[in-house]
């Protein structure tokens, strides 16, 4: 029997832990919403920043047949796009610098190869420019042609279009490799865009030299029982653990509901020969991260004083579940090689404490050098701490059909997934719960009960599923 005082302590601790969870764990974005004006000039203090908000970063050796010499990098931005949110739907931000940064000499500084994407809005064009109606995309009715092409005939209904530029930076030497590429628009619905898959396919550009790029809307590949998590970790089984058979089945959700089902994101994907990332270093391992930066302005300044990084993402859930709320803005603005300042968060993860309280199973809460070394080092002997997603290029890619969501923790381990790079299929939620929780959680097969995404991933570039369309989108409910 616990005494009343103990109970109260537990409740308070639980409250604090859950607060941390609410604010951080699984919350896949930077944060709060917008407020607006009162009678003095009251600007919003806290605003969501969706276009600079990276939801996921993937990096893996290409697992499409015959493409194994290539590496794929993908970043997803704009969390939880409701597919029906017309009339402007969703777009990249022309002021944001979207960038992948790669370390290929093992020093933990991702300044060796950088891939930059910048977007521009075209003036309202085509048929919508003739209307005063606020519709960005029209077609397929009343004699209007449907939208079947990104450019030329069939693109008349595409009122709002974004073009983009791709720039490679090799040790500060800049090369613009493509310009004027067209970003794939949001999937409005079958009348306006009767064959979205073929429309989107036109947005995959072959730039020569083994390089392919894609930018545009995709189905959100992340899967999680978000509602269950936020209802005080009220997962749909007590305790929330999977049987061995359930755990081994990557196609069925044993007890959870994928609450990101039917939502979309905007993706930037690039595939290129591994040699372009390793350069002449002969590296067998690379580290990388994705970032978004915005123009920096000052009160007395004129134009803008360069870019300031507003978000970075390498390993999933670090920003959300490891770094403390009070340090998030700074953490995001710093480079990964400055991670030493945040070492304490890795050694004493709040998430472990929270899980122990909620699951009631002892977790490893302190001196987690294992976690630090896993996330911040190429090898335990490294002294440089750097938060990068690391990819061992010597590990052959697992064919798509054989991939395991639990990667190295699967019954038949699949070493080609997170934390060795990260693929869209990898169940980073369950892996993180078990790795952070420690041996007890691994043995119990702790899980949110969601093992698969609602939309089928594809085995070739750009690897993410066609987005849900605005008219027929469907969200799985418990």
């Amino acid at each position, binding site marked *: 029997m616990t005494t009343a005082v103990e109970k109260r302590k537990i409740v308070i601790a639980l409250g604090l832990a859950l607060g941390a969870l609410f604010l951080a764990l699984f919350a896949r974005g930077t944060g709060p919403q917008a407020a607006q004006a009162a009678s003095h000039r009251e600007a919003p203090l806290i605003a969501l920043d969706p276009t600079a908000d990276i939801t996921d970063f993937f990096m893996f050796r290409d697992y499409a047949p015959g493409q194994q010499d290539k590496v794929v990098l993908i970043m997803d931005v704009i969390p939880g796009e*409701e597919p029906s949110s017309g009339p402007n739907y969703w777009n990249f931000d022309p002021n944001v610098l979207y960038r992948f940064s790669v370390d290929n000499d093992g020093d933990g500084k991702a300044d060796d190869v950088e891939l930059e994407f910048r977007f521009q809005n075209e003036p309202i064009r085509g048929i919508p420019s003739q209307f005063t109606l606020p519709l960005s995309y029209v077609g397929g009715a009343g004699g209007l042609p449907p939208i079947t092409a990104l450019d030329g005939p069939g693109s008349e209904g595409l009122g709002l279009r974004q073009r983009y530029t791709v720039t490679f930076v090799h040790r500060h030497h800049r090369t613009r490799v493509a310009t004027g590429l067209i970003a794939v628009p949001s999937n409005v619905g079958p009348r306006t865009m009767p064959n979205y898959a073929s429309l989107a396919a036109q947005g995959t550009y072959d730039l020569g030299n083994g390089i392919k790029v894609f930018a545009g809307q995709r189905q959100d590949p992340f899967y999680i029982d978000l509602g269950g998590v936020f209802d005080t970790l009220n997962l749909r089984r007590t305790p929330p653990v999977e049987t061995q058979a359930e755990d081994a089945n990557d196609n069925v959700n044993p007890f959870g509901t994928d609450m990101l089902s039917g939502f979309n994101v905007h993706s930037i994907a690039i595939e290129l020969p591994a040699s372009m990332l390793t350069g002449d270093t002969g590296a067998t391992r690379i580290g990388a991260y994705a970032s978004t930066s915005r123009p920096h302005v000052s009160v007395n300044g004129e134009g803008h004083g360069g870019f300031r990084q507003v978000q970075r993402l390498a390993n999933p859930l670090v920003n959300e579940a490891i770094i403390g709320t009070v340090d998030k803005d700074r953490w995001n603005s710093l480079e990964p090689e400055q991670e030493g300042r945040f070492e304490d968060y890795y050694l004493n993860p709040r998430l472990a404490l929270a899980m122990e309280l909620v699951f009631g199973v002892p977790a490893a809460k302190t001196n987690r050098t294992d976690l630090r070394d896993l996330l911040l080092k190429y090898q335990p002997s490294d002294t440089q701490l750097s938060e990068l997603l690391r990819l061992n290029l010597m590990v052959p890619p697992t064919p798509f059909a054989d991939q395991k969501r639990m990667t190295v923790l699967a019954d038949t381990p699949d070493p080609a997934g997170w934390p060795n790079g990260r693929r869209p299929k990898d169940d980073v939620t369950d892996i993180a719960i078990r790795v952070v929780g420690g041996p007890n959680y691994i043995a119990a097969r702790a899980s949110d009960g969601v093992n698969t995404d609602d939309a089928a991933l594809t085995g070739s570039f750009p690897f993410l599923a066609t987005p849900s369309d605005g008219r027929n989108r469907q969200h799985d409910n418990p």
Partner: protein
Amino acid sequence: MTRQTRLVLAGTAAALVAAVSLVGGALRSSGGSAPAVPVKASAAGETFAAGFSDGDTASFVKRLVHDLRAHPGDAKGYTLLGLAYQQRARETGNPAYYTKSQQALLRARKLAPEDSATASALGSLALARHRFGEALVLGREAVRLAPFTARNYGVLGDALIELGRYDEAFRTFDRMSSLRPDLSSYSRVSYARELLGRPEAAKRAMNLALDAAGGQPEPTAWVETQLGKLAWSRGRVREAESHYRAALSVFPGYVYALEPLAQVEEAKGHDRTALSLARRAAEALPLPQTVATLGDLYARHGRPRAAKQQYALVAVIQRLLVANGVRTDLEIAQFDADHGVTPGRGLAAARQARRARPSIDGDDVLAWALERNGHCAQALPYSRRALRLGTHDALKYFHRGMIERCLGHESRSWFVKAVRLNPHFSLLWSPLARRYAS
């Protein structure tokens, strides 16, 4: 284009608009003509985590209250509840939510005294209640507890601005913008530039804020409205109108755009449209400024009794605000000076307002109240202070002109300056300014 095509499109748009009014409340709907789905239902987690529901603040409040009943020791929950009540106050104009917000935040503070989010939320509450001295203390505390969180510099900087400590305020905004350039910091840098008399530079920063809003209805509407006001302050009626209309298209019924749009329509000579817009704004959100605008429009159009009714309502609302901890001295002083209500009280309120809020607005209101009460020599130094930053502000130019005129000095140049900058700067005073300028 065929007629059939036009019909199809018109039909689509109409249906969409209908869907908006069916599904969405006046204040909380997503995309312009789009169905009012919660903007980011999936991000419910994210926004919930962050402390807000994107879709519906009222039900978010309910849920928090319910959860807190089960976990009464959850400090974070109380902080979120306190912030949610502030959002409700903004949505409804009902200041009773400020009192509720305060209760929740004080509870949170008791449970977790050293929490920067609670300090910052108490700071934003103090700002909303125009208690800038308290906001300054709370902003400093939040910065001390979390020196790397951009938001806290926003609380601090806003307080410094209203206290007239501009150099510190601008440095604080620069710090905020260095930590995190986004809508919140861009719009503050924009405001600072506007105060410094750099409207073009202000517009550039606000345009960055517009893109950073990423098409989200409420933030986009807010930024568009600010861009509209910036254009309006320079007499650019058409540009202002297009921004207000953009705000209303992305956020139908957005009151903060309706009210200035009424002034645009008035400037264009569309009296009836102006009146109906002002009425809509005042009915949806009866704040002192929306109700006063409606009253001023009635007054302009020879309906003094209707105007008086609105003015009386302003007084009632102000009492309600005061009862819920909102300081309204400056607003009362401004209103009284403008409308000739109980002159003595106006002057006392103006002195009190200037003491609590020694900003250029505090200086200007005191200068104006002094002029209205015939103390023009005393008014002059305050008017000089009110213009010390070089702000391009037609109303302040006009006040200065009136003071100089009262003193028998050359004053026409000030009226010319005001009218050239913005011939429609005030429903009440523009006609007089035009007369003195000619």
